[in-house]
């Protein structure tokens, strides 16, 4: 490789270094130092000691887990139903575009659509009240973990559809036909062939869904601001001085912890994908 060849990637490298590297450095550096500038782990320790932060983590994890599982189940179901239809048809196109919108770009609009539906004055809430069901009689509000979680499902399911459709399409029709020809029923084919073949991809996609929910904040922000007790909200409060003054380092430590969680998720995903790719050559 001649030296001259490297010149071409210099602009990109510089850009990433400055605009990604710098903020990242600030986060890591800030998390690992005291106000006086000494190296320390005390910020991390403080996040583990604080009951507020611990419960925020717990809530984030619980929220991410159940919305991923729900998203996975219904996402696979929906993807299978769409793939079973005509390829290239209008249904496919619409579902694919709509999934893209909801999965990636829906943050704020989604929150408001949700408020309009299940909020205190929401259309469905009012409808239910008319037939005698008061949604808000108990502890449910749209700003609760459950309410926000239901909004999360709104983008988790489409994300699953997007992620798993290639794998579902990759189920060769010959497998089902061969299985039937050898005496299997459709159900036995699913059990012995389709499910095992899809399993790695489904697991991998669910991991992505988990990471997605864990990092998400836009929807919660639009719905309830930083009042919901999840990790991103704590970081928000910490750096905007809404908590204690000087909590910003704790916020940075929380940020580093979030990054670590995502990295772990990505590594697991990569490992699972290796296995999936091997079989489906």
């Amino acid at each position, binding site marked *: 490789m001649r030296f001259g060849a490297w010149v071409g990637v210099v602009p990109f490298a510089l850009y*990433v270094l400055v605009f990604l590297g710098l*903020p990242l450095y600030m986060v890591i550096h800030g998390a690992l130092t005291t106000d006086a500038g000494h190296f320390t782990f005390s910020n991390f320790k403080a996040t583990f000691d604080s009951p507020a932060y611990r419960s925020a983590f717990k809530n984030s994890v619980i929220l991410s887990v159940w919305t991923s599982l729900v998203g996975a189940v219904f996402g696979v179901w929906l993807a299978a139903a769409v793939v079973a239809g005509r390829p290239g048809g209008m249904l496919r196109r619409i579902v*694919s575009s709509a999934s893209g919108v909801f999965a990636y770009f829906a*943050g704020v609009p989604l929150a408001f659509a949700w408020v309009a539906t299940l909020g205190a004055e929401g259309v469905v809430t009012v409808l239910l009240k008319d037939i005698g069901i008061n949604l808000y009689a108990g502890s449910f509000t749209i700003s609760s973990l459950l309410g926000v979680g239901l909004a999360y499902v709104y983008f988790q*399911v489409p994300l699953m559809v997007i992620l798993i459709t290639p794998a579902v399409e990759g189920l060769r029709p010959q497998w089902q036909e061969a299985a039937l020809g050898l005496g299997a029923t459709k159900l036995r084919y699913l059990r012995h062939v389709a499910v095992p073949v899809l399993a790695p991809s489904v697991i991998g996609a669910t991991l992505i869904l988990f990471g997605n929910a864990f990092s998400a904040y*836009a929807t919660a922000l639009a719905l309830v601001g930083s009042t919901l007790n999840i990790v991103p909200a704590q*970081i928000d409060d910490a750096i905007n001085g809404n908590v204690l003054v000087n909590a910003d380092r704790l916020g*940075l430590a929380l940020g580093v912890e979030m990054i670590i969680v995502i990295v772990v998720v990505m590594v697991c995903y990569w490992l699972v994908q290796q296995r999936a790719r091997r079989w489906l050559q």
Partner: protein
Amino acid sequence: MSFGSVGIAAADEVVGGPPPRPVTKARKERPRPWRIAIFVLAALYFLGPLASAFKFSLIQSNGRYGLGNYDQIIKNSAIRSALITSLEISAITAVLVVVLMLPTVVWVRLRLPKLTLMMEGVTLLPIVIPPVVMAAGLEELQSHAPEWVVKLLFNHPLSALTPFYVILALPFTYRALDNGVRAIDLHTLVDASRNLGASWRQTIIHVILPNVETAVLGAMFLTIALCLGEVVISSLLLYHTFPVALIQESLSGTAGISVALSIITLAFTFGLLFALSFLAGRRQRATSIRVI
């Protein structure tokens, strides 16, 4: 949005298009119950809130039904200026990210193919960092940076957000452009072009660019959608972009306006992706005709 908002799958799905399936014979079969069930469920769950939102948005501040909320983009100056800001940011980001990534992608493919794996890794980084953490880092940067940097960068949303939105857009832009470039057998085209006497500039403009049009457009559309929806960083850093204005409006005035604008945003984004799906399809068909 978040983790997924810079999803790689978006780029693959939208630009690469679905893998060509063998044409199965169309036989009119009765749709099976398991398909009907999920379609009904999905319709209820996904179209329901949209319908509710639409109905809700028609309730104006005076309590009557009408399209008054939808006028606010023009009438409400706060929203209008926020929208213009967001549009400006989107446009510049979209252009910037292509200007940065396309030459890089082409260069790596042609001269440094061994770097491909590393490129994929680097462009994966923005996904690993949640936007809220990125915002935290930027906040730190802003409070510790020297005066001239603050003046240059952080005084206006355009200069503050655009450079970092480019980073957010990196993962799927790289993927889209890389897919586009892979699909056209770059080496052969460039060799042929140079062999016929074209300069590098002519090769890029007349040979490479037209053939990656769809990929470039796809990357730009996705970037615009990303920028119009990005709220975590802009809100945490206290800039007045369109999504931030929506949230503020919902807190101060009636929710009706925010809901109306949300519907417009969703419709617009859907329109972008829908249009893109036709472009991608056409490209694939065109390529296969050329090959045969």
